[in-house]
């Protein structure tokens, strides 16, 4: 069976972020959600020396650099909103599966912004994935 390259990268994402899910639970057993997010960013910063692209970074188009920076802002904003939702009375059993539905935004918006279409089979896979994430986060 020939698997596309993205599948292997996705497998690395699943394993590392799957362990992250466990570490999130372990860290919030000892410190607050906000502190966890702050120390998480410290963890990001530890990787920076290995990722430093040098002056070459300024050779990329300003538009792409903006997307990259904004992706970080939106990711952290989403994490903060999740913590805020739980802190303002939202039950974890409702908030977690609800917020896990973010791929739905991509499925709805990607065809318009990125002009991408998915096959019927891929659509079925996306549907199964959304159901899985919703149920697993409950």
């Amino acid at each position, binding site marked *: 069976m020939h698997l596309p390259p993205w599948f292997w990268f996705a497998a690395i994402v699943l394993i590392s972020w799957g362990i992250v899910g466990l570490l999130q639970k372990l860290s919030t057993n000892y410190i607050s959600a906000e502190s966890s997010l702050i120390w998480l960013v410290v963890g990001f910063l530890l*990787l920076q020396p290995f990722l430093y692209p040098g002056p070459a970074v300024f050779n990329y188009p300003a538009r792409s650099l903006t997307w990259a920076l904004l992706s970080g802002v939106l990711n952290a904003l989403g994490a903060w909103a999740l913590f805020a939702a739980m802190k303002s009375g*939202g039950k974890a059993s409702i908030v977690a599966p609800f917020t896990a539905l973010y791929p739905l935004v991509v499925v709805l918006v990607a065809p318009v912004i990125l002009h991408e279409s998915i096959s019927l089979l891929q659509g079925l896979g996306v549907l199964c994935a959304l159901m899985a994430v919703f149920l697993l986060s409950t």
Partner: protein
Amino acid sequence: MSTPATLKAKWFWYSILCVLSWGGWALLSKLGSKEIPADTMQFLFTFGALPVALVLLAARRFRLEKSPKGIGFAVLNGVLSGIGGLAFFAAFRSGGNTSVITAATSLYPMITVVLAVTILRERLTWVQVTGLGFAAAAFIIFSF
């Protein structure tokens, strides 16, 4: 909770903000990865996340708990999140479909659930078992 009450609840709107933010994050990750390699994307991404952490730090009046275990787990969390982020950007850069990659990578709670059962000795509910079934189905479909 009835629907009108839910719509008035703060947590509901925070959750909506989270869904929209993470949806936007995934889309921008794809847009940025078209021209920028994965390691540089992760490098820039961190500078985007930094201001949010600083705002939270200021909101806590620069006082953080001093639990070495909690801090250790959270920092390790960041390192692994970063490694996962690298692979996330690399997946987009490899040219796959954005909707499919976002849906496939969002299946990570499957690994968390399996680890929670094996390491933390947590028990699975029948709802989670059903979720694992859907995750397996999604994987088989994506592998075609």
